[in-house]
């Protein structure tokens, strides 16, 4: 029998902000999903290396394949893997056999939810960027064998930053979906994204039709003009920001109201 004494949390329980409890919640999520995350990481690391090796073994002139730049591929994998991870993050609160434990763990619903956001958003992004950087070194080494020039992955380019921003906006919706739907939350969230985008396109189309109907025939809107372009950019940015905050806080509210399933 192990008789070592477990360290107990000594902070006041009523404190609104407790780093220790947030760290414990992060460890809880890591412990709960460690197998699937490890498998995912291994797949992401081993698949490209295996493909590289297969190319070297079976293709007569591998340098043709080695010339392809893979940055956008990595970023796509980063986004899809992250959204999959996010969708499964609250899998325990949808199972009657497990939800009682997570929901009664002594941490506020806010800490539980925002810890989940932290691990699947910023922390996941940092880890993913480090993994992609590591992979770019490995694939770069393969390329040098075939005298193909390569550039190391730089996470601080505008393209990567834009993709990280896009990921975080969709991440908020998928995090909300992970709380809202009891099963198949990735699929349902994806369908919701498609529905929202389709509604947006329809709304814009109808708005344009309505404006054309209202305006006189000889009146032309120059969408390419700086006035309209900057206006559109600001409106789009605000819409993205609003969507991000809306799903993020709606998710937090849903988590706080989550009950045990019977």
């Amino acid at each position: 029998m192990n008789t070592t004494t477990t360290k107990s949390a000594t902070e006041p329980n009523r404190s609104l902000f407790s780093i220790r409890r947030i760290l414990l919640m992060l460890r809880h999520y890591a412990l709960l999903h460690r197998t699937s995350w490890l498998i995912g990481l291994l797949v992401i690391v081993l698949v490209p290396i295996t493909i590289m090796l297969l190319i070297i073994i079976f293709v007569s002139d591998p340098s043709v394949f080695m010339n392809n730049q893979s940055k956008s591929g990595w970023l796509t994998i980063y986004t899809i893997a992250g959204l999959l991870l996010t969708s499964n993050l609250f899998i325990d609160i949808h199972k009657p056999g497990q939800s009682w434990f997570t929901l009664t763990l002594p941490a506020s619903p806010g800490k539980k939810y925002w810890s989940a956001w932290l691990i699947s958003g910023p922390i996941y992004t940092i880890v993913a960027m480090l993994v992609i950087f590591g992979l770019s070194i490995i694939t770069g080494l393969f390329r040098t064998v075939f005298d193909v020039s390569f550039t190391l992955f730089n996470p601080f380019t505008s393209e990567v930053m834009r993709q990280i921003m896009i990921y975080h906006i969709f991440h908020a919706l998928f995090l909300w979906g992970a709380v809202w739907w009891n099963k198949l939350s990735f699929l349902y969230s994806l369908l919701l994204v498609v529905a929202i985008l389709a509604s947006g396109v329809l709304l814009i189309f109808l708005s344009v039709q309505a404006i054309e109907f209202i305006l006189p025939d000889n009146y032309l809107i120059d969408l390419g003009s700086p006035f309209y372009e900057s206006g559109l950019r600001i409106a789009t940015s605000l819409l993205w920001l609003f969507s991000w905050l809306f799903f993020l806080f709606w998710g937090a509210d849903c988590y706080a109201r989550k009950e045990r399933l019977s």
Partner: protein
Amino acid sequence: MLHINSINFGFPVLNLGLFKKPLLFENLSVNIEQNKVYGLFGLNGAGKTTLLNLMAGLLFPKSGSCVFKGVSLQERAPSSLDDLFFVPDQFDLMAVRGNDFLNQYAPFYSRFSREEFDRIAGLFDLSLEEKLTHLSYGQKKKFLIAFAFATGASLLLLDEPTNGLDIPSKSQFRKVLASADLVNRSVIISTHQVRDLAQSIDHTLILDKGNIVLDSSISTLSESLAFKTLPDSHPDLTKCIYSEQVLGGYKAITTKNGHADMSDPVDLELLFNAAINEQVKLNEAILEVQV
């Protein structure tokens, strides 16, 4: 300690507005006091597990409130969750070793005592090196019971704690309950197996059709009611509150009428049947003595 005030609760059903599902609890109120071991009894489907879920803050009432030490359980405040532990009847544990589980989750509980956990785990003969998912249902339950007592929570909610326990473990569980420090602490045990815990309980709550039909301490019951085995055609049978035919006579509950009467200890099975079938007579008899 825990006040349940006029709660209404029912499970949501998809009924297209044609049928109204009756509420499981309508205007239900219960007060849980400190330093007591409560026995929560009820027929299947009476709502015992639902009531425990409400007490743990896992379900929210439609109206009314569940307040634990001045804080609504609906808030799921860390201070409440740190001071309350629920052991459900049906549960899954993580695929981690017992020691890893303790290292991860014990720090959430500010009063967790590893020494207390080891003491109870020793009584239950638990192995902490095995993965929790590899343990049998009974072993998992014993692990969780040990964890619950070690948290130092002042309210323990145990749903069918002896379900799945073998005969020696049931006896060990009674020892754990008897040896646990119950100062400023209460335990609510929901069970069908009345005989397993008859000696451990000092307050009974009997739930029937969404209502608490009996809420009384064992000492009050002992003072007011006499549990007897009477032969056929005994004159007391006509005056008793409730009786059941057994081999060679009747088991009956009668009033003590204020004087010390020789009788058997409180028979929880008989009391339960009386509360379900003769709740008005039973409560009147208890009230009469209390007044």
